[in-house]
């Protein structure tokens, strides 16, 4: 909850629905938008 504008992004390592892994460092040097979805159903 301490993350704010100007903070370093939170590291993550998560799988997507195809099984591929995504890590924050994979996106170094790129603009990245994380969209936190509400319920899907």
């Amino acid at each position, binding site marked *: 909850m301490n993350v704010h504008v100007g903070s370093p992004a939170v590291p993550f390592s998560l799988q997507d629905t195809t099984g591929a892994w995504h890590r924050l460092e994979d996106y170094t040097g790129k*603009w990245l938008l994380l969209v936190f979805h509400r319920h899907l*159903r």
Partner: protein
Amino acid sequence: MSQLRRHASKIESLGLQVLVVSFERADVAADYAQEMALPWPLLLDPLRSLYTAYGMGRGHWWQIWGPATWWAYARLLVRGGRIKRPSGDVDQLGGDVLVDPTGKVVVLHRGEGPADRPTLSHLLEPVSRARVSSA
């Protein structure tokens, strides 16, 4: 999400990478990604560790079912959209985080209800500005 999807080509032209994060079960999320032909990866965060880290909280009854939600539903109907009966954990709120190429958070929007989404221009403005200044 529909706003983002409508502007997927513009987002791509800016070189912005999009990752959608869901707390739902893998099978539910996979069905959703396929049904919606989602153009971006849909990441699975069943423990909600990233939701928690960014402070994406849970809504109170009034936030979830208050006038802002009904107003959003009305606008959706006017645009010809469909309203589905919601199921699953409807109290989990969403949000958006824009990270710059150095790994710094530039926009952090924690939704305060189902209808509380930042405008696309608010999300894209820092990216567009950086492109102009580097041109």
